[in-house]
């Protein structure tokens, strides 16, 4: 590293810095005080709230597990009723997966990611605050359903027909469907932010090959969330439509099929396992080098392994469905793919072992948790190979063997790394590190308790004990094993209790003074930081800048690097290019805001009211939410409010860009990818149902509306897109009224296209409750209706900005984003029209 010879280095900014620079920077980044504190958006605060909330849900779901283990301690126990037990295991699985594991990983990235890249914050700070509050309030409401006997009891996998209206009347299943659907939306919001954050807000010089492994793992994580979560959102929407309006997607008698749910659920559900594991693996890959004081061995191989896992995880979902009667040939493919995914995990495991060998591991608490993780996760991986084998799974599936396997993988692969993370990164946010002495107890108790709980379950399962049973008869040979598991569960709880004691004694966050880099780690999150993160943004020349650039911390804090102040008087960070991290422009970021938090509360209340079928109050909550969102948006898109800024080293950056230069434009592109994934799932559902029940399809198009209708709809859609394109040209030419007129005409054109399609099917006598075909057609229409409504609001918002003089040829990010989503909506409408009207006509 040539940069390591200190005095030769050319610094971007000279010393001493102007006296007023630092106080101004501090003032701008200070969190609000008093009641307004909850509107804070700084990533350190939101990140800590977020991690805390996720950990709270871990504790709550853990308590549910303890009750279950107590019930199963002895045969024929009647501590809890079957009704409560079924709610307990449903809530345990659901809360752990949806309210703990995935949010915990997003939460840690809010806390760590910007600082690892020496960005001042994530690119959309208000969006992270919104995602957190929506998740926290929604999650608490969802959890409380168990106190009112309102919790879902259909299992975390919610298989219909058990969860449909006939066999699960009442609101329990609706709590699941709306609650989880909504929390997934918050997860997707977080994922979009992570993609943009990783790709566009790295420190100058931090090219992709110098990016910390954790950032890679979060990039793959976010990509997987973006592609996988729409599947579960679509599935929950379909099931809710069946429950509320009797649209028969899963009812065999009307051409539906319960297997459709299983496909959609596991297309999401299997990637979800890696969605939890990859960030944890990324965290381990950060901690191992620090604890061994050696760079990670096999950086490139690990990056390949992360990407490979991401791809392969989408080809595994059927291994949850080996017993459903799918033909053996298909199963063979999924058997092979499920084995192949072992390779990327093995690469990472051996890379960590190689790093141990290359360095010298310090046996501190994070290390102990990492070793425990390796021990447990290797067993989980090996039992995973066993259940990937089709004939073996015919026995193991849905038994306690799977309960054992999944906890070895998920608890092993995610919870142990999470505790390592707590011990490792708490000095980064707290005045004091956690206690080494208590930490060893925590690790020991959890490790022994975990193996005592879950190892015997392998045997219990092979001895024939199925999962999800609230009791079991004596004399089956399961008693001793179950009692052992229960004892183990209490040991885990004891370990967690000791951890809470440790937190109470030593965890002191939100203080200006941090314990800091106690491990002598090499990455940027350990730079000294204030509320504004690093004082100046360094030039990165290696993967472990703090090891390779001596005095980096001192120089960064002195303000010698880029952007040492806040020249525009607002919160700012540097946007850099995705591959080689060249500075591109200054992103001006919004600060704390009430509307953001209120919008999150509004969203949660909207979904709650919808769940209990209070439709009119729900509508009020919805309108309130949209109003708050508009308030929150209004101050964004500031336009070129400031001349280009010198960030140091002779680099002058604009403060405002639009179109494909803009981070917000790329966020919209990612949102369109989400929408495409959703569209793909809907198309999958349509064609899957056709393969199952071709008899309810209008073969040859006989029962379809006449072709005039779809032609009219196509024409209207295309005209609507043309109106937007015209508006774009007029905006460039700075002609305001043509812009407004085109915007205003594009909306009715889009609405009319939707109306024509709806009317066409309605007048032909088709009703969504008729058959799975009819339900699929009306689902396309309803989806398009939803997109049209969203786009119409965006259009009116853009129009309002034009009328207020906030839109012109240069200040047009709002318009560009609206237009992009507009074209997507038109594309989606055309695609749906093509499928609905052309495909049946091709059938014979």
């Amino acid at each position: 590293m040539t940069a390591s010879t200190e005095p030769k280095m050319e610094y971007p900014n000279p010393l001493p810095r102007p006296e007023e620079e630092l106080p101004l920077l501090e003032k701008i980044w200070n969190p609000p005080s008093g009641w307004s504190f909850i509107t804070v958006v700084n990533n350190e605060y939101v990140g800590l709230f977020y991690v805390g909330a996720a950990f709270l849900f871990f504790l709550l779901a853990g308590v549910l597990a303890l009750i279950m283990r107590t019930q199963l301690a002895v045969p024929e126990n009647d501590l809890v009723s079957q009704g409560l037990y079924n709610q307990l295991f449903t809530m345990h699985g659901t809360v752990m997966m949806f309210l703990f594991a995935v949010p915990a990983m997003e939460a840690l990235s809010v806390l760590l990611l910007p600082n690892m890249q020496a960005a001042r914050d994530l690119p959309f700070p208000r969006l992270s605050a919104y995602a957190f509050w929506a998740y926290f309030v929604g999650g608490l409401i969802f959890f409380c359903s168990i106190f009112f006997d309102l919790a879902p009891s259909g299992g975390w996998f919610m298989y219909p027909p058990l969860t449909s209206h006939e066999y699960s009347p009442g609101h329990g299943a609706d709590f699941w469907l709306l609650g989880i659907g909504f929390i997934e939306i918050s997860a997707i919001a977080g994922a979009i932010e992570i993609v943009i954050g990783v790709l566009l807000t790295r420190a100058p010089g931090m090219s992709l090959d110098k990016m910390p492994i954790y950032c890679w793992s979060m990039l793959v994580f976010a990509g997987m969330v973006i592609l996988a979560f729409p599947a579960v959102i679509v599935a929950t929407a379909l099931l809710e439509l069946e429950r509320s309006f009797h649209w028969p997607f899963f009812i065999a008698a009307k051409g539906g099929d319960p297997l459709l749910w299983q496909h959609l659920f596991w297309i999401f559900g299997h990637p979800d396992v890696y969605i939890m594991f990859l960030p944890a693996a990324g965290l381990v890959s950060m901690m191992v080098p620090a604890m061994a004081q050696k760079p990670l061995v096999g950086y490139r191989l690990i990056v390949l392994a992360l990407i490979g896992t991401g791809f392969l995880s989408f080809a595994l979902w059927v291994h949850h469905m080996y017993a459903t009667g799918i033909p053996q040939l298909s199963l063979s493919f999924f058997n092979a793919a499920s084995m192949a995914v072992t390779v990327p995990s093995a690469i990472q495991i051996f890379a960590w072992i190689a790093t141990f060998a290359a360095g010298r591991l310090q046996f501190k608490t994070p290390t102990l948790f990492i070793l425990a993780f390796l021990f447990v996760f290797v067993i989980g991986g090996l039992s995973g190979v066993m259940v990937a084998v089709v004939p073996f799974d015919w026995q193991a599936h849905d038994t306690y063997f799977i309960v054992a396997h999944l906890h070895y993988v998920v608890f092993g692969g995610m919870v142990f790394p999470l505790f390592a993370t707590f011990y490792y990164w708490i000095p980064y946010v707290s005045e004091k590190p956690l206690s080494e002495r208590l930490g060893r107890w925590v690790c020991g108790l959890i490790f022994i308790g975990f193996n005592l709980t879950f190892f015997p379950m392998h045997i219990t399962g092979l001895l024939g004990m199925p999962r999800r049973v609230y009791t079991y008869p004596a004399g089956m040979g399961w008693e001793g094993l179950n009692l052992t598991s229960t004892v183990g569960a209490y040991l885990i709880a004891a370990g967690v209790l000791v951890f809470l004691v440790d937190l109470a004694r030593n965890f002191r966050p939100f203080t200006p003074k941090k314990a800091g880099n106690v491990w002598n780690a090499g990455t940027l999150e350990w730079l000294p930081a204030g509320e504004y993160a690093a004082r100046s943004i360094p030039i990165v020349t290696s993967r472990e800048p703090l090891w390779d650039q001596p005095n980096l911390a001192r120089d960064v804090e002195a303000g010698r690097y880029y952007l040492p102040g806040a020249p525009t008087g607002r919160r700012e960070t540097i946007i850099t290019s995705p591959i080689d991290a060249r500075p591109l422009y200054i992103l001006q970021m919004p600060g704390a805001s009430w509307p953001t938090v209120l919008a999150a509360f509004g969203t949660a209340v909207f979904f709650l009211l919808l769940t209990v079928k209070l439709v009119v109050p729900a509508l009020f909550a919805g309108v309130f939410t949209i109003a708050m969102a508009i308030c929150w948006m209004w101050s964004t898109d500031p336009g070129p409010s400031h001349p280009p800024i010198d960030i140091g080293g002779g680099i002058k950056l604009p403060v405002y860009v639009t179109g494909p230069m803009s981070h917000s434009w790329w966020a919209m592109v990612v949102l369109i990818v989400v929408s495409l994934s959703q569209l793909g799932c809907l198309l999958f559902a349509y064609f899957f149902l056709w393969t199952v029940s071709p008899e309810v399809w209008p073969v040859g198009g006989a029962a379809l509306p006449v072709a005039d209708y779809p032609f009219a709809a196509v024409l209207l859609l295309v005209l609507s897109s043309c109106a937007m394109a015209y508006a774009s040209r007029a905006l460039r030419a700075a002609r305001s009224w043509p812009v407004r007129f085109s915007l205003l005409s594009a909306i009715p054109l889009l609405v009319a296209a939707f109306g024509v399609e709806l009317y066409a099917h309605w007048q032909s006598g088709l009703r969504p409750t008729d058959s799975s075909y009819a339900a699929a057609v009306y689902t396309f229409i309803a989806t398009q209706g939803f997109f049209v409504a969203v786009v119409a609001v965006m259009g009116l918002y853009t129009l309002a900005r034009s009328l207020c003089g906030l839109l012109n040829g240069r200040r047009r990010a709002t318009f560009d984003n609206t237009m992009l989503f507009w074209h997507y909506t038109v594309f989606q409408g055309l695609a749906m029209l093509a499928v609905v009207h052309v495909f049946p006509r091709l059938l014979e």
Partner: protein
Amino acid sequence: MLNLADAVQSALNPQSPVSQEIATLGWVMIAGAALIFLAVLALTLYALFARDEARAVLGGRELILYGGVVFPVVSLSALLVYALLTADRIVTRDEPAAVRIEVIGEQFWWRVNYLDAAGYTDAVTANEIHLPAGQAVDMDVTSEDVIHSFWVPSLAGKVDMFPGRSNRLRLKTDRLGVWRGQCAEYCGAQHAKMAFHVVVETPEEFAAWLAAQRRPAAEPLDPFSQRGKTLFLSKECGKKKCCADCHSIRGTPAKEEEGPDLTHVGSRRWIVAGTFPNNVGTLAGWIASARHLKPGAGMPSFDRYGGEDLRALAAYMESLK
């Protein structure tokens, strides 16, 4: 405590060629997994604690390539071939089935229809399946309501039961005996108490059993059982639906098929989907307090009947051999 010793439900106690193949495959993988685990453990300890110059050998990309790529690719390829060949042997059916049985999962019991050559129902029973030893039997499994899964671990792997779909499972074993099975797909409130038994007997015994199952119910001989029959057919039970409104006993006016067929309930070893051994006491207890013993099941508690009535009903049930 029930004595279940004669009704094993364990994948580790294989009693048929298919479950034996799977158990062998399982043991091979368990042994392999144990060896690999110990090797990784040893490697980790070596990387941590060996002399510096010795452990440095492991500190390069070679370890990752050999351990993380070459070894898994080779070993998993071999396992894949073994696994696919095993699966192929299991699903290949090289002889026609001697017996076809339709099993329909219902919340929370098993309807069992023996089919004749033309596919029509020949004999109806519930929760107890008899098989002739040494002969191939096809189980066509489906569901009447939600998804269930048919699983007798000692005889075969599980197969799911879907409403609107039928899956086929081939069973064949030489071992005489009784094996327990249980629903393996969560199916609602009483998923835990949805078991059944498979009785494997000699072809002669099986033929005799099937012939007996085809016959209508015998008329009860003693007056006490007669009284039970009268009660069974009575419409005055204090509930919306009485016995004969849900159950059928062929040869009597009771013809409803909502609940299990009781024509030969006295011949079964167990009642309530494998939950209680069949005797007068459990029968009477079940009739009196089904809602308490298996909350969520379709059967009401006939709490208006006194002890004498209950014993009479139970005696009638027991007489239905």
